[in-house]
């Protein structure tokens, strides 16, 4: 028995040592072109990685002896993509049906590290993603930023409780219709049933939170979250598609002095000046040619393919995302088509790397290639916005986590 235990301990120690060695491993990427996003492109650049962080980047970086060299002479290296409204690696239901207000629900508690979606997503180049709770409650809870590698949710999470989610419009009224001929005591007879009620309930929650902050009775986790949000301690993300919902979102935000981030924003092109005047960042997506036919935009019938371009031109900070929809196009395709429809190419690249990283508050670690940043690197076969470029290799924290077959 004792021998067994000793062996086990020895094994454990060696495993830890091995993983530490992997962390200390020096990797050098020689790329035909490096796009650091934070600076000018570097032809024939070298990226040096030590301990999972970028230790050097430039055209004349000396590669130390013993370093593992990744030769990508014909490839383009760029920062791993950041999806500010990524796919949801969650098993089971996304939406809590028992209540419309669940501000203290943490999506991080529902993350499934074995999720297939996450693995598919990683192969399209996404190395950091924001996971939001479902969108069918008015206040649905707190989202988390994570990297798609790791055995447990704790290992994966970069930043927990990264933002509080609110959904405007009529999504939260779905399923609240009273079944035909049933009395109002029926289980289904719940608020909200209209967009008016959505706005009213949202208002009331923040009103209650204000009162709660003043009175401070017994602790109430939901109220604590709302109070923190009221004080600006946690970013608020409001999903609003139609222009009318965008206006309502701003109206309520102004009443309580909230600073918000707009998600989806399908009809943002109708009110670009309003959004610009509020200095609000928008997270666009999912993108479809005819959104209403794909149940993404059931209340609206109009869209503009150049939503991103029009908003960017008005001075709005635009983030492109896959919109938490696993069937939507991948981020590089989304950016490619944003440019096709009228968005400047440099802004489109930023909109899938550094801008979302800043929005999520993780720009000190990801989103650009610079010394000291996490070595989350994407190697492509050509220019990122070319339809014939392919993701050849993905590194997360300096380790190759995906390599395309040759």
């Amino acid at each position, binding site marked *: 028995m004792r021998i067994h235990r000793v062996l086990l301990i020895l094994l454990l120690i060696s495993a830890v040592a091995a993983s530490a060695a992997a962390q200390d491993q020096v990797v050098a990427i020689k790329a035909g072109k490096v796009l650091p996003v934070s600076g000018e492109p570097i032809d024939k650049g070298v990226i040096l990685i030590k301990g999972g962080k970028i230790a050097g980047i430039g055209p004349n970086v000396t590669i130390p002896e013993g370093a593992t060299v990744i030769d990508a002479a014909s490839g383009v290296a760029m920062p791993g993509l950041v999806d500010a409204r990524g796919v949801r690696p969650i098993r089971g239901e996304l939406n809590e049906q028992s209540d419309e207000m669940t501000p203290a629900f943490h999506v991080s508690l529902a993350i499934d590290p074995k999720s*297939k979606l996450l*693995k*598919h997503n990683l*192969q399209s180049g996404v190395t950091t993603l924001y996971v939001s709770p479902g969108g069918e409650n008015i206040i649905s809870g707190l989202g988390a930023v994570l990297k798609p590698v790791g055995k447990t949710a704790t290992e994966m999470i970069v930043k927990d409780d990264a933002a509080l989610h609110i959904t405007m419009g009529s999504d939260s009224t779905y399923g609240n219709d009273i079944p035909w001929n049933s009395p109002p005591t029926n289980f289904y007879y719940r608020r909200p049933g209209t967009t008016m009620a959505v706005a009213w309930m949202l208002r009331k929650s923040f009103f209650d939170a204000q009162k709660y902050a003043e009175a401070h009775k017994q602790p109430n986790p939901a109220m604590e979250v709302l109070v923190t949000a009221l004080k600006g301690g946690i970013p608020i993300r409001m999903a609003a598609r*139609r*222009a*009318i919902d965008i206006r309502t979102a701003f109206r309520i935000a102004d009443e309580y002095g909230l600073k918000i981030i707009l998600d989806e924003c399908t*009809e943002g*092109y*109708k009110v*670009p000046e309003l959004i610009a005047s509020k200095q609000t960042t928008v997270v666009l997506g999912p*993108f*479809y*040619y*005819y959104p209403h*036919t*794909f149940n993404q935009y059931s209340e609206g019938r109009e*869209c*503009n*393919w*150049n939503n991103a371009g*029009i908003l960017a*031109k008005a001075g709005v900070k635009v983030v492109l995302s896959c919109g938490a929809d696993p*069937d*939507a*196009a991948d981020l590089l*395709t*989304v950016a*490619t*088509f944003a*440019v*096709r*429809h*009228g968005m400047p190419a440099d802004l489109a690249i930023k909109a899938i790397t550094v801008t979302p990283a800043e929005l999520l508050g993780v720009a000190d670690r990801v989103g650009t290639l610079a010394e000291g940043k996490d070595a989350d690197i994407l190697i492509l*076969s050509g220019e990122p*916005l*070319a*339809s*014939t*470029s*392919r993701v050849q290799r993905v590194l997360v924290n300096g380790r190759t986590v995906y390599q*395309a077959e040759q």
Partner: protein
Amino acid sequence: MKFRSSMALRVAGFQPAIRRRDAFDTWACLLLCALLALVVPPCLAYGGPVRKKIAIQAGRIIPITGAEIKDGTILIDDGIVKAIGKQNDVTVPWDAFVIEAKDKVIMPGFVLAHTSDGLDTPNENLPEVPFLSTFDSIDPPSPFYEDSLRDGVVAMLVLPGNYTLLGGTGTVVTPHGRTVEDMLVKRYVGLKISLAPIQSTSRMGHMQRFRRYMDDLKEYREKYDQRKKDAEKDKKPFDEEFDPRKQSMVDLLDGKLKAFIYCAVAADVPKAIEIIETYKLQAVLVLSPDCYKAAPLIAEKKLPVILDPQLVVWHTNEEKNEEEMKVVPQIFNRAGVKFALQTDTSSYGRRYLWYQAATAVKHGMNRDEALKSITLYPAQFIGIDDRFGSIEKDKEANLIFLTGDPLDAQTWVDKVMRAGEIVYEKDKDERLKKLLEKPREKPEHENTD
């Protein structure tokens, strides 16, 4: 002079009662006629359908069947390509209308080998309806056709949906025109057979139903022939009509129609092959993404295939606990199967044939071969390669003018030419402008969001 003018009027059917003081009016009238004769025909030609002789001077021509031509000329007469070559090698006739397209890339318009979009209901709810035709269901104002033209498609085979055993016959149309008759390229093309079990039936029952139909058909045909023979023997008149509801299946068996067989899973492919071999059919396989697993079998049988719009699928490798990306065109290309690509509008990119081809190229497919899979191969599969699919002498001038390389995502279709007639111009595409430009400022009371 006076005499001549009155003669002219008499010829034109006027009364010859001309007095001296009317001479001026007569002259004015004649002058007007002459002016009209000079001015009107060119005006008509401008707005009218076809200029007879056209010379396109292009920066780059991708003929598909030959090498690319830089600075080339295409000569068109009455909608037919008469010459294609380097600018110095082709003499432009003095009376040809010249289209300058030095900054454009010209290639044959795209061909879509299989679609059920643009039909009101693609699947009939009875399983055996081979006598139906999509010709009766095509809805010309459907946005699908408008979009297809905008995206550079010049011909498409509209077939019944994937979920009817014997769905009916298809129609090849061009996505331009006010009526189906206007759009028509070829009628009665291909018969759709689906191996996907419908409603609650099992695959066993589905196949059994098919075999029973074929047996019944054989029996009916033999008996009919016998009756005909007997009548001839007895020298009696024979006026019994062959059941028109069975005619398309007979044409299929006689090789006059091609079978388009839909396989919903890879396991349907061997069954499709069994059907093809048993009944000696000419066939094209319409495949679901799962059918990549049957690629070697399809390659062995040298069958032409139409791939699903979804080109990338995932396979869970249970042993390695890995998610493997399967690129369908790459697998078929490596197996040596000739295929045509399809489109849908489910997500960004997939709606364009060029994007589908770019996806294949991205994963290692030869560029020329990928371009063929959206032009020449689909044209061959649906039997219109004598008119569509490449720019060649004596073929119809079905061309697209592109603003850049066809596989570049920043390239747009600038013009579409159908048999020598320009049928689409991006500059005049108001709907596209509305989709890309900021909406105009509306007065407050009009703004309804």
